[in-house]
């Protein structure tokens, strides 16, 4: 039997472990990655010429990051590594990539998509101002470029990443004005039975939360974001929230790191035709997978945070499982014991994932209360009022129709950053469940594609 052609999209923890597993089985997979260097976002390698140590960059995860980087360095001669390649479309058994203005169609028998995650966002009035960044962005500025996003930074939102990045900022010498968290302590306490499935990670999280208090950083839980103040030219000047007590709190700052945990990057899965299902707990559509990462489409496998937000450790397991599924489905012998051990580990990761989403819930209720003038779609400048108007005046009770009539999600980012919130706005306005309102259909290209792009010479 001919050696199957396997493509892995993404060189983060899931992609690297998938590649390692395939190479161990004697295959030579193609690894397509948009980044210039491996590691993904979580274990992002800083540019050449930067001098910080792994401990400085990755903290408690330094050993895991180093191990992943070392594995990948060893794999380099054994794989077809395509850094700086954007996977912009998938059709008819080919992954379409573009690199340096040159387009290629890569045929595959199996494809493992490990495309990672981006921040999950709920708009707040004023979030279009310069100086408002996603939490992920705040971390990348520091990790990859040694910069803080401003002099006085407010962290607004919820989720483990907020706790982590605020701590990293403080450690690096930035002024952290406050952590304004929409979640409540009882959310976290209620989630403990699930969170204990990974006691070590739970302990790190508790330690992070404690570190903010020990450092005297202002932490407020259960806040309702009201407005990010600022002006058109100068950008952000402050943040206003309503506290649990009902009192308003206004803080001056020149930067805001905003985010409500993460969402999987599912565009390629969508373009490949994978079935999606609505997850009621996190109120989002995500691709259907089995416990090894098989999607509904034969030959398409999904792994890592690009399908379920299980974090870097979970992604390493998911990458191995997806690769083993590819091998099993291609008729290679399956290491039964290894698979069952990985599945067991993955179940703990999945339990923890569910715990995290309960501990730091997506604040969907905020959508109903967004002031009419709040920008929902940053790309197109579409407000909550304009979106509600197409619901009320034009009967748009389905997400793609709301998009067609209002332009929400029609901009350069294709609804990555407003899609979930826009669905909640429509759901609140129609009194329907977001499961009924639906999701923005994926449309190529996954990222903007230069018209200069030409087919690579064969």
């Amino acid at each position, binding site marked *: 039997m001919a050696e199957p052609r396997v493509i892995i999209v993404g060189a983060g923890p899931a992609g690297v472990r998938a590649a390692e597993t395939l190479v161990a089985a004697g295959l030579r997979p193609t690894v397509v990655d948009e980044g*210039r260097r491996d590691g993904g976002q979580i274990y992002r390698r800083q540019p050449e010429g930067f001098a910080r140590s792994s401990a400085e960059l990755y903290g408690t995860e330094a050993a895991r990051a180093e191990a992943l980087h070392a594995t990948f360095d060893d794999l380099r001669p054994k794989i077809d590594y395509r850094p700086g390649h954007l996977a912009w479309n998938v059709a008819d058994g080919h992954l379409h990539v573009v690199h340096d203005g040159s387009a290629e169609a890569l045929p595959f028998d199996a494809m493992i998509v490990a495309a990672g995650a981006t921040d999950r966002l709920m708009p707040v009035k004023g979030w279009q101002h*310069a100086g*408002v960044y996603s939490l992920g962005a705040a971390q990348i500025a520091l990790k990859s*470029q040694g910069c803080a996003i401003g002099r006085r930074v407010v962290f607004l939102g919820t989720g483990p990443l907020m706790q982590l990045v605020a701590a990293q900022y403080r450690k690096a010498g930035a002024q952290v004005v406050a952590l304004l968290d929409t979640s409540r302590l009882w959310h976290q306490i209620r989630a403990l039975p699930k969170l204990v499935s990974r006691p070590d990670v739970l302990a790190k999280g508790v330690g992070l939360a404690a570190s903010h208090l020990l450092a005297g950083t202002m932490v407020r839980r259960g806040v309702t974001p009201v407005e990010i103040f600022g002006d058109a030219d100068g*950008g952000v000047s402050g943040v206003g929230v309503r506290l649990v007590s009902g009192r308003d709190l206004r803080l001056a700052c020149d930067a805001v790191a905003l985010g409500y945990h993460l969402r999987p990057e599912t565009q390629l899965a969508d373009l490949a035709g994978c079935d999606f299902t609505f997850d009621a707990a996190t109120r989002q559509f995500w691709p259907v997978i089995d416990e090894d990462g098989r999607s509904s489409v034969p030959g398409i496998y999904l792994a890592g945070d690009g399908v379920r937000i299980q974090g870097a450790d979970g992604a390493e397991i998911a990458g191995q499982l997806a690769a083993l599924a590819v091998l099993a489905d291609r008729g290679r012998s399956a290491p039964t014991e290894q698979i069952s051990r990985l599945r067991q580990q993955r179940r703990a990761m999945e339990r923890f994932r569910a715990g995290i989403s309960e501990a730091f819930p997506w604040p969907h209720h905020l959508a109903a209360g967004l002031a009419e003038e709040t920008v929902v779609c940053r790309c197109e400048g579409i407000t909550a009022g304009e979106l509600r108007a197409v619901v009320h005046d034009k009967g748009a009770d389905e997400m793609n129709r709301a998009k067609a009539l209002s332009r929400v999600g029609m901009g350069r980012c294709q609804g990555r*950053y407003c899609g979930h919130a826009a669905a909640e706005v429509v759901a609140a306005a129609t009194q329907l469940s977001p499961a009924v309102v639906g999701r923005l259909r994926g449309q190529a290209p996954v990222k903007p594609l230069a018209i200069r792009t030409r087919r690579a010479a064969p």
Partner: protein
Amino acid sequence: MSPLQPRFVRLAETDRPTVTIAVDGASVEALEGDSLLVAVLTRAGHLRHSEFGPEARAGFCLMAACQDCWMWTHDGDRLRACDTPVRAGLSVLTQPPDMPWPNRV
């Protein structure tokens, strides 16, 4: 904050060779390994203006996903500032070049 005031603050890795680029015609000292976004925002408050609102924009996700940080070259080419590394002599604009774009080749 004034638009001329730098937005980003360098906290580490400041010991790199400098590279000179131009932003709206003015020389800007950047460091080797900077992204274009970081090079501009350590000297200024924004990268561009929104097409559909009054506000200046300074990027949002820094990972090539949100598409908020597209700048212009003098020839009318587009550059995504967060994943474009600086190189000596790079010259960018925070708004479209004056000449109507379709007449440029």
